[in-house]
């Protein structure tokens, strides 16, 4: 509040703002922490995943107790944030973000910040943000490298002005192959959070209009000017208003989870699964553990985590086909 460009007026605007934090892993937990402490009035935190011990190296909102409790990240984040700032509203949602629910998720929000770990969701966010005229901030990290870009529809270039297509699966490094260094997460998420604070506090003129590329290990930080990009590119999203990710024409319903040796399977039509009856069914198949958010089955070398919406995370493989087989074998599809 004492920072003059923000002032009391800016702080009041933050208090009245609503943000969607899309993904609450490494980037997302820094975003939630920073925006929650800054006094952004309403944080809607959506994440599909639950906590594992190796998340703690970079996912700053969580601790060993959260891992032991096996609770979903969105829930753990909300619990922690309520202790940090009791004066803001926190709305945790444990679900996968896809074209079927994104319009609900953005309902009433002033902007979206990127805490996701995959390209598919980012292009979906870009489609949605441009179509519904909502600012969003892209951020991504791998190894010691990170990038961020602020997108204000109608004003700045969008993600698809920058890059027409996402890299095909298997062609870029993942958290598995390249690892991820803790500090790059904090840098990129902090850049994103500051952009959000500028936009939400009514200081759009201060936004960063470059693509920021940080190569932390090689000591290089570049601000790439986006200059004429918006005018020069015949962008399918901004110019032609084509939104294939939002229309469900692009993107699969499976995802290999970054750094997890796991595959997530989800289904276009959400189901309503009784974890209790599933637990009963699986007794004797393997080791079953359960809480009110999820059920786990350890069998052979696999760890299956099943959510009430029918979604499952199959640990122990990175092969989508193998994961589908395991799902079909134990859950049934």
């Amino acid at each position, binding site marked *: 509040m004492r920072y003059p460009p923000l002032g009391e007026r800016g702080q009041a605007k933050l208090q009245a703002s609503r943000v969607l934090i899309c*993904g609450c*892993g*490494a*980037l*997302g937990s820094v975003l939630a922490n920073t925006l929650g402490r800054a006094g952004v009035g309403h944080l809607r935190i959506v994440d599909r995943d639950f906590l594992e011990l190796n998340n703690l190296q970079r996912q700053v909102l969580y601790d060993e107790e959260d891992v032991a409790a096996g609770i979903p990240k969105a829930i753990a984040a909300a619990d922690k944030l309520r202790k940090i700032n009791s004066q803001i509203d926190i709305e945790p949602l444990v679900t996968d973000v896809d074209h079927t629910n994104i319009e609900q998720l953005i309902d009433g929000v002033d902007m979206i910040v*990127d*805490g*996701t*770990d*995959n*390209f598919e969701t*980012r292009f979906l966010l870009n489609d949605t943000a441009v179509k519904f005229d909502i600012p969003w901030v892209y*951020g*991504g*990290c*791998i190894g010691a*490298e*990170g*990038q961020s870009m602020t997108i204000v529809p109608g004003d700045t270039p969008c993600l698809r002005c*920058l*890059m*027409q*297509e*996402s*890299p*095909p699966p298997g062609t*870029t490094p*993942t*958290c598995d192959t*390249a690892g*991820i260094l803790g500090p790059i*997460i904090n840098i*990129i998420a902090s850049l994103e959070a500051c952009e959000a604070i500028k936009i939400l506090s009514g200081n759009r003129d201060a936004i960063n209009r470059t*693509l920021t*590329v940080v190569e932390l290990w*090689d000591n*290089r930080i*570049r*601000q*790439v*000017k*986006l*200059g*004429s*990009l918006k005018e*020069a*590119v*015949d962008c399918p999203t901004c110019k032609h208003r084509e939104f294939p990710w939002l229309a469900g024409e692009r993107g699969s319903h499976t995802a290999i989870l*970054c*750094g997890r040796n796991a595959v997530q399977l989800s289904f276009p039509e959400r189901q309503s699964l009784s974890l209790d009856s599933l637990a009963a069914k699986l007794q004797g198949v393997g080791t079953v553990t359960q809480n009110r958010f999820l059920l786990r089955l350890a069998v052979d070398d696999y760890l299956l985590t099943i959510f009430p919406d029918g979604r499952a995370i199959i640990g122990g493989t990175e092969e989508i086909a193998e994961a589908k087989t395991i799902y079909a074998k134990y859950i049934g599809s």
Partner: protein
Amino acid sequence: MNILFNGEPRSVRDAITIAELLEKLALDPRRVAVEVNLDLAPRDRHGETTLKEGDQLEVVTLVGGG
């Protein structure tokens, strides 16, 4: 002529365009962004943008983790 490609010196033919360079390197122009001297080169102009001696060119791919 010599350019700096992703921070490393590289020799290319005079007045090569960005499109030609990407093709030579087998890089899919739809999936990379190219910056020349810290300015992003719009992909619709790669075919007409020629490089000069000493240009610093970086090929940027999106990073997807987080």
